[in-house]
């Protein structure tokens, strides 16, 4: 009964999304007030139906209803309740339901947020969102319905993929999807502007908080995913340039570029067509990412049940959504005129370079991700590129970006004279270079050529970001939250650069074979292996080792790396033991039984690695702080002022 109810809710949601799209887009085109008024009830109904469908799927998992194929394939009666709920998005069909449900939530939020904006514009925004919802619902019902029944029902399920049985799974996909889907709002704003054929500085101000919010979620989601991979996969790596990771990273790079270009469009009325294009591309890349991950055209460590049928459907959807958006762009963008010019060393040019470099970085990642596809399409066989390609090419565009950031942050809008800002630029650079060299050659030894550069760049970014806020504080000028948020996000970036440099340069690793009671040395730490004991979990069994870690003889930690075998899927996973100590991560992974009571162990010491993810959180927090700025709240409260714009819009439509 419950699965049927869920399926029924999905169908209703699809029909409501169709109405939402139709009234939202056609209503303003035909200037039908009442059609536009129907958009809000349609979107509310749609999200209620999606919540019902989501609830039904959760209920089927909680009740262990193994007559539902998706539940039987991804759960088991021995699976703890927490993971039974998280298993809802553990595989393809359920994660789509989550995706659409979150899109519904963003759509309702956008409907509320755009209430005070001109009616035709708001209705078009919700209409475009409805079109996306409709496409995804049609896709789900046609190719990936999670409510299909099994006859006869299975006595028990096949269990959730053991790698996914981790608290990280509960948080990672919902947060990441919230980010992906949030970019749909920016896309919808761009779509609405193109349908109207009109884009002004107000448009940029309305779009900014949505983009920044999506970006902040995306940042958190990627960081959480990386952290999850770090400690569940047990390889000690945090980024693998895997197609699925790239699929989330490319929209992030675009969204970052978009945030900066929106700032220029809002403040100066420039870069209009470029901003529009970025808004379209950021979401398009998350759609293309969805395609790459779920169609099976690329092989990835994050195996999603993939099939070419699904791929064909998504490709058709891509053509409709992205194709029509880009066609609309080709038609409308030439109409947009920049409102002013700027000088070479003004803030605008630095943000232009920021955009060029970010888009270049994104393009190199895209090229690397697509390389296997392109080479096989050209008949050259499957060519796969890995970190040896990604690391240097990515750095090539990112290093100049980091350096330019520390200079450009001091630049003023419009005017190009940087000479009065030379002092803070030079002072921060010298301080950063000193700190960088001191850290690399003083505290640690060794490292690579790039390590002092990396540390210095990170420190320079942090110092430069602080110059303006400190200056304002000294002159008793209040700092707007937008500036504070920007500062925080840039400090986060600085911390990120420093920690990633440190991890890349100073990680110590050793594979050892130890019998009970034997000791191995790595860096300043001693590792004493205390033997193996059997372990027993709710749906797995395995062996656990005990390792006592000391530093110069004084105790640091007792660590318990495990190897688990999950009963139903007979999968062995490594649960590494990770400890943080003095900002350093100690990681122990249990390897093979070598006989004679000896076991292979991988020991790793990774300085500052935790800061990589903390830095991402700082960046996201900066974004959230910026959204809470008064300016955006004023944008909504200023209804009378905005209504004056309405006649202008209707006029432009008539014309």
């Amino acid at each position, binding site marked *: 009964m419950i699965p049927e109810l869920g399926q029924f809710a999905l169908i209703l949601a699809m029909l409501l999304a169709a109405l939402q799209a139709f009234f939202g887009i056609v209503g303003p085109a035909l200037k039908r007030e009442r059609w536009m008024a129907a958009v809000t009830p349609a979107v509310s109904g749609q999200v209620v139906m999606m919540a019902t469908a989501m609830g039904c799927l959760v209920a089927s998992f909680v009740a262990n209803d193994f007559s539902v194929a998706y539940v039987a394939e991804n759960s088991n009666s021995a699976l703890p309740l927490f993971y039974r709920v998280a298993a809802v998005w553990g595989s393809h069909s359920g994660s789509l339901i989550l995706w659409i449900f979150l899109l519904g939530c963003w759509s309702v939020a956008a409907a509320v947020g755009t209430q005070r904006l001109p009616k035709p514009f708001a209705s078009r925004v919700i209409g475009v969102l409805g079109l996306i919802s409709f496409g995804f619902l049609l896709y789900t019902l046609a190719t990936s319905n999670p409510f299909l029944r099994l006859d006869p029902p299975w*006595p028990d399920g*096949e269990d959730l993929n053991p790698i996914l049985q981790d608290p990280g799974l509960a948080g990672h996909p919902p947060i990441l999807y919230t980010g992906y889907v949030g970019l749909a709002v920016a896309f919808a704003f761009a779509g609405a502007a193109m349908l109207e054929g009109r884009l002004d500085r107000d448009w940029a101000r309305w779009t900014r908080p949505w983009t920044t919010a999506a970006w902040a979620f995306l940042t958190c989601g990627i960081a959480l995913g990386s952290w999850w991979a770090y400690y569940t996969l047990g390889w000690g790596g945090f980024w693998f340039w895997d197609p699925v990771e790239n699929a989330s990273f490319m929209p992030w790079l675009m969204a970052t570029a978009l945030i900066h270009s929106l700032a220029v469009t809002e403040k100066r009325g420039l870069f209009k067509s470029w901003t529009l294009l970025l808004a379209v591309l950021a979401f398009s890349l998350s759609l*293309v990412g969805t395609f790459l991950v779920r169609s099976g055209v690329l092989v990835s460590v994050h195996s999603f049940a993939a099939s070419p049928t699904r791929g064909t459907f998504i490709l058709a959807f891509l053509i409709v959504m992205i194709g029509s958006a*880009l066609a609309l762009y080709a038609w409308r963008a030439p109409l947009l005129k920049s409102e002013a010019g700027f000088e070479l060393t003004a803030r605008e040019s630095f943000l232009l370079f920021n955009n060029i470099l970010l888009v270049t970085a994104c393009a190199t990642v895209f090229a690397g991700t697509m390389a296997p*596809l*392109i080479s*096989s399409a050209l008949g050259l066989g499957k060519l796969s590129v890995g970190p040896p390609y990604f690391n240097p090419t990515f750095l090539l565009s990112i290093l100049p970006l980091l350096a330019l950031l520390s200079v450009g942050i001091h630049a003023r809008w419009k005017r190009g004279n940087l000479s009065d800002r030379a002092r803070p630029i030079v002072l921060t650079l010298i301080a950063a270079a000193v700190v960088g060299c001191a850290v690399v050659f003083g505290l640690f030894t060794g490292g690579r050529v790039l390590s002092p550069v990396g540390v210095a760049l990170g420190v320079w970014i942090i110092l430069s970001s602080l110059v303006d806020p400190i200056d304002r504080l000294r002159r008793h000028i209040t700092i707007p939250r937008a500036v504070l948020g920007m500062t925080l996000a840039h400090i986060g970036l600085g911390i990120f650069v420093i920690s990633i440099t440190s991890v890349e340069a100073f990680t110590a690793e050793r594979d050892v074979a130890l019998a009970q009671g034997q000791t191995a040395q790595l860096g300043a730490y001693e590792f004493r292996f205390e033997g193996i004991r059997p372990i027993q979990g709710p749906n797995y069994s395995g062996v656990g080792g005990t390792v006592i870690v000391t530093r110069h003889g004084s105790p640091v930690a007792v660590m318990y790396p495990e190897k688990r075998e999950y009963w139903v*899927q*007979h999968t062995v996973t490594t649960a590494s033991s990770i400890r943080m100590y003095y900002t350093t991560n100690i990681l122990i992974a249990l390897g093979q039984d070598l006989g004679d009571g000896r076991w292979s162990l991988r020991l790793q010491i990774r300085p500052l690695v935790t800061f990589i993810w903390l830095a991402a959180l700082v960046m996201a927090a900066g974004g959230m702080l910026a959204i809470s700025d008064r300016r955006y709240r004023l944008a909504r409260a200023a209804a009378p002022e905005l209504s004056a714009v309405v006649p202008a819009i209707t006029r432009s439509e008539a014309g």
Partner: protein
Amino acid sequence: MSRFTIPLVLFALLVVVLAIGIKQSPDKDLIPSPLIGKAAPEFSLPNLIDPGQRVSSATLRGHWYLFNVWGTWCGSCRMEHSMLLKIKQSGVIPLVGLDWKDDDGDALSFLKKEGDPYQTIAVDHDGSEAIMWGVYGAPETFLVNPQGIVVYKFIGPITEQAWEQQILPRLPMGQMPAAAARS
């Protein structure tokens, strides 16, 4: 062509690449095992029903058989059981079971209660035989021809549809009665 159409053109190129990608991406159901087209692993294992005897690949030579990996602990295998009984009834092809990582007592009482679809059942207590076959989850079923070559592998419980559309068409017409007579 204005510069604003460049993104559209690039996107069209991307669509072409993706479409070729879909066309070339292998249908994963078709090549589920590297064993296909190669000789099945040689084995000689304890017999579940008759502990005095052994089940060996040598004695299975000369006729078609389905090598079915199962265990009483495996829910999907229990689900598959009724279909296996139907296959036995049809007399088309004998089933050779591999009781995987199972307790002999559990297996015998299960077969007594639910019926025994197998011609013979080999026992693989520690899972080492299953590794030779590349099994990564029960149930899995291998179709082996008289020359001992693996012709097809089916992952998951055999359904009516899989039996009729995947397994039966791979059997030669004339062979069927012979296999039925032997089983």
